[in-house]
């Protein structure tokens, strides 16, 4: 147990681990949905502290990773236009589109700005009435309400030069898609805590029942993950499959009612393509008809973009939990955080990046050569 001293409360961590070790009698495969959880797991070596029978499979919960290449290319195209101020969260700067990224667009003279909050982008629009300001609206149910509020405010304040390039995604349809895949091995889910802070847990009982899979709402700090695993394994061992909230300090069962109401007003559910995975029905949001004026795709015609995914990249399988990052041939050789082939290597929450940064095991010989020993 070489990492356990690094836990915030090592005694509690040890107790949780002991409990898991003494409960487990058979192999179980659990998926953590959120990329932040993947990061914590690899950073703290949690998967190595767990009994061998408990396997953690990394899920698709990294918004930067699942944004489709086509949308990235649209962003790059809009950001390159004269007169446009393109605003984004910092994580999107290095996500490779076909041939370039936002960082390079800025280097080539595009007015790309990083904001902390979408409301900062709205303020930029207010201050620059003669320019078109576009905000790159990606993310799961945690990020969608802030972006929805920003569009609502733009409309309310009559700020016409502000638009959103929307690519929001929703977790429950992704869980459904994962469970429906014939190669699915997942037997229990650690649901993403902050998504549930907004959405509550209402969407999960039906999924848990239909697929007979426990879903445990889990935070993303090391002890939260251990507690989530402990409760999921306990359910599996007892043959149960219910929804359980292991993150009550941040998640109320009903979520955040004001945020949910705003989501319903500003967005409508739509099919969405996930990078590397393909289209998942009803898995995303787009602006509802009332707010279509603020849709960047309508304002700038960016149709007919040809995308080209690097053939070597297997991030789709990584995102669905079918492949571990180091099993990809390009891992650590052709593909590193400096020369990322796929978004799962570039985003700090991506599984490939987490393995590259913190993981030293099971590398292919070529990758072992190329991977720095951390």
């Amino acid at each position, binding site marked *: 147990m070489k990492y356990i001293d690094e836990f*915030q409360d090592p005694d509690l961590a040890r107790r949780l681990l002991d409990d898991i070790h003494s409960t487990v009698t058979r192999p179980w495969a659990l998926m953590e949905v*959120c*990329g*932040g959880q993947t990061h914590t797991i690899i*950073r703290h070596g949690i998967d190595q502290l767990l009994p061998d029978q408990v396997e953690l499979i990394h899920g698709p*919960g*990294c*918004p*930067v990773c699942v944004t489709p290449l086509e949308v990235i290319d649209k962003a790059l195209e809009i950001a390159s236009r004269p007169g446009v101020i393109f605003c984004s*969260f*910092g*994580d*999107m*700067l*290095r996500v490779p589109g076909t041939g370039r990224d936002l*960082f390079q667009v*800025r*280097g080539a003279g595009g007015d790309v*700005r*990083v*904001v*902390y*909050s*979408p*409301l*900062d982008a709205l*303020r*930029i629009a207010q201050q620059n009435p003669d320019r078109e300001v576009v905000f790159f609206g990606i*993310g*799961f149910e*945690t*990020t969608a*309400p*802030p972006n929805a*509020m920003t569009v609502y*405010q733009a409309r*309310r*304040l009559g700020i016409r030069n502000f638009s959103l390039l929307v690519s929001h995604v929703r977790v429950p349809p992704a869980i459904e898609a994962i469970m429906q895949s014939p190669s699915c091995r997942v037997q229990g889910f650690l649901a993403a805590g*902050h998504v549930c*802070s*907004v959405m509550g847990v209402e969407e999960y009982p039906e999924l848990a029942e239909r697929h007979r899979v426990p879903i445990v709402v889990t935070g993303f*700090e090391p002890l939260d993950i251990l507690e989530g695993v402990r409760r999921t394994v306990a359910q599996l061992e007892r043959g149960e499959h219910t929804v359980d909230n292991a993150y009550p*300090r*941040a*998640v*109320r069962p009903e979520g*955040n009612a*004001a*945020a949910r109401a*705003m989501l319903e007003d500003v967005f409508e559910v739509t099919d969405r393509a996930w990078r590397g995975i393909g289209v998942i029905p009803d898995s995303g949001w787009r602006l509802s008809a009332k707010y279509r004026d603020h849709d960047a795709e309508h304002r700038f015609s960016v149709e007919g973009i040809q995308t080209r995914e690097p053939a070597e990249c297997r991030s789709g399988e990584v995102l669905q939990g079918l492949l571990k990052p180091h099993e990809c041939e390009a891992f650590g050789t052709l593909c590193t*955080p*400096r020369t990322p082939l796929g978004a799962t290597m*570039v985003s*700090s*929450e991506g599984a490939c990046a987490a393995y590259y940064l913190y993981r030293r095991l099971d590398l292919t010989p070529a990758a072992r050569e190329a991977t720095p020993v951390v």
Partner: protein
Amino acid sequence: MCLAVPGRVLDIEERDGTRMANVDFGGVVKEVCLEYLPDLQVGEYAIVHVGFALQRLDEESAKQTLELFATLGMLQEEFGDPWEMAAEAGGTLPPEGEGARL
């Protein structure tokens, strides 16, 4: 971007008809929108994501989380200069006139 960080409300004011607050994240102060937690008061803690308070948090959990994030360098990741971080990740220099230019 996925990270949601607990912070403490320092003061609250109405701006353009929107309830906004200055929130302290272990030393970094940012402007935060309170529209989704309209009854949050000065001195209380909340989980904040991209400038929006999303859920109340008790003081003790908030402090523990902040302490953990500080130890792991995650506050720096969240609030540091994104151009510099992107440049570092790519092994290049930040483009001309870097910084958020707000």
